């Protein structure tokens, strides 16, 4: 099913919310996180925020028709990721979820249906591990 501009706007919000949630985790655990973990999380946050920005660009340009992104599946994966980040306490797991979500964002930008499906599953797996 082609991705519409409404889907792209919704995905933009999902990626942005996920970036905010990971940031909240980073700032909440600031003093207990290692420098390296803080850096890794921050990197993922910016990548997710930029994925959100990519979705806005696509929604405004309305050029997503060929991507066959499976918007609902992607949104469900992003929602599961956000929920997991809000409840997880273990930094490794948060990093895994964030990394998988960044991969999903990149797959959508690359318009590769196979990669999108694979990465959406990876996000689900990381969020429910």
């Amino acid at each position, binding site marked *: 099913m082609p991705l519409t501009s409404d889907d792209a706007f919704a995905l933009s*919000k999902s990626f942005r919310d996920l970036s905010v949630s990971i*940031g909240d985790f980073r700032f909440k655990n600031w003093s207990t996180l290692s420098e390296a973990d803080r850096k890794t999380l921050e*990197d993922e946050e*910016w990548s997710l925020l930029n994925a959100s920005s*990519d979705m806005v660009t696509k929604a405004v340009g309305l050029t997503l028709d060929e991507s066959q992104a499976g918007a609902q599946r992607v949104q469900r994966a992003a929602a599961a990721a956000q929920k997991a980040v809000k409840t997880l306490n273990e930094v490794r797991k948060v990093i895994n979820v964030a990394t998988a979500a960044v991969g999903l964002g990149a797959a959508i930008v690359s318009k590769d249906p196979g990669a999108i499906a694979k990465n959406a599953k990876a996000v689900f797996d990381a969020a429910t591990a």
Partner: protein
Amino acid sequence: MRRHRTGPELRLIALACLALVANGCANLTAIREFASTSSDAAQYSQLVVAYVETPTRLKRYELPSQSPVLERQAAERKAQREQLLLRHKLIREYMDALGQLAADGLPTYDKELDALGNAVKEAKFADQGEAAAFSAVSKILVKAVTDHWRQGKLVSLIEETDGPFQVVVGALVKVVEQGFTADVEIERVALDKYYTALQREGKDAAGLAALGEWRELREGQLKGHEATIRNYAVVLKTIAMGHHKLFESRHQLSKPEIQAEIHLHTKRLKEAFNAVAGL
């Protein structure tokens, strides 16, 4: 010394007035005013510029490792610039033609009309509904120019255009309300991450105070930008509503009560646009 009009002179004036009425020429000042205000408002393109430049502005907040992504995004948005500005241009061109016909003038030919037609041919709009609407409005504009339309064709212009015009303006409203607002939300998150981290790491009291003030300033700028976006959406919606009013009243445009209603739309439009321009 005051000269009194003679009987034959008065008869001549009365005849001239009758001729005007017979020609179908009417004083449509309110429509001309609405068209001219709409055309001015459609020229406002600062929001498009801000949207195109968002990835470049985000560079100041993000880690250097994100620069290649932001540069790609900046290039993609630069490529969208023309498409976005074309919507503004179409509204402006149409409103200029509307005003010219209302004044019983000939719509002028602008080479930009060719660019509009070409943009549609080159499929710059992936949304087929919008592409069709865009094409319909630009075709009517070309027809009005090549067929030398005058005031007598004003009703046809409004009648043929209202449907597609609403689609084109509606699409621009969506871009402004959803796209540009989402952009502000992203920038706000970036700003928040950047300053929160700096404030966590900072030790120097004076430095932290300065940072706090700078953060406030940036947040204020974003709020101002957000308000501009909201107000410009009102401007576009008022243009669309005003035009639809013209469509609904197309057969009685010279009636004083209709002119008064159009004048009211123009007044609202001016107020909304003044809010955008910060006047």
